[in-house]
């Protein structure tokens, strides 16, 4: 980061959130693929794992991943627009807050689906 991006400015927080959410998603990816790959062995093998994912702790982790997924998407779109689109001051702050809000909304949608 340059001097124009002092530590813990909103832009820097957005950068860190984008990077850490990407890291978490990347670490989750192999497990996601391995679980889906169980379908090669048949429905029963996949179902055995899916039953395990019904536990509240796993559901909470899944909720976190959904929120991080939405957050990484929104902050990634912000990077693309900052780099490629005409400069807009709103992208600096408004988009970050909108991104967090939409990610949490996505998390709420996930919870509503799980509970409902």
């Amino acid at each position: 980061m340059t001097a124009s991006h002092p530590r813990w400015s909103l832009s820097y927080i957005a950068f860190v959130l984008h990077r850490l959410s990407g890291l978490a998603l990347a670490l989750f990816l192999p497990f996601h693929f391995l679980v889906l790959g169980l379908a090669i062995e048949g429905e029963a093998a996949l179902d055995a794992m899916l039953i395990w994912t019904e536990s509240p702790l796993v559901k909470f982790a899944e909720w976190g991943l959904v929120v991080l997924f939405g957050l990484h998407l929104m902050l990634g779109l912000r990077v693309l627009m900052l780099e490629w689109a005409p400069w807009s001051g709103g992208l600096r702050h408004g988009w970050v807050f909108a991104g967090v809000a939409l990610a949490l909304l996505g998390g709420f949608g996930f919870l509503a689906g799980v509970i409902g």
Partner: protein
Amino acid sequence: MTEARLYALQRLSAVVMAPLVITHLITIMIAVQGGLTAEEILARTQGLSIWAVFYTVFVLAVAVHAPLGLRKILIEWLKFSTRLANGVALILALGVLALGLRAVMAVTGGGA
């Protein structure tokens, strides 16, 4: 590959994935309603070949995007040499690609 080309690949894969991620998130919210079962997942993914195309493109893009992101973290935060980070990223890309395509075949019935 030059840093500029890796940067372009990272952004290109992001552009490809953005609509896929939105679709995937919406699918997740619909799929979790009433609990997840293998029968329900496979009925959705094996019914239409469009899902095979969707997930294959998704895996190809993420196999580029995620390792390049991790490469940046290795270089900037963990002070890896560019050469070592490139090697790690390449291995991760091949691993994600193999596991991802295997998962696509598993849930779509061989991509048919």
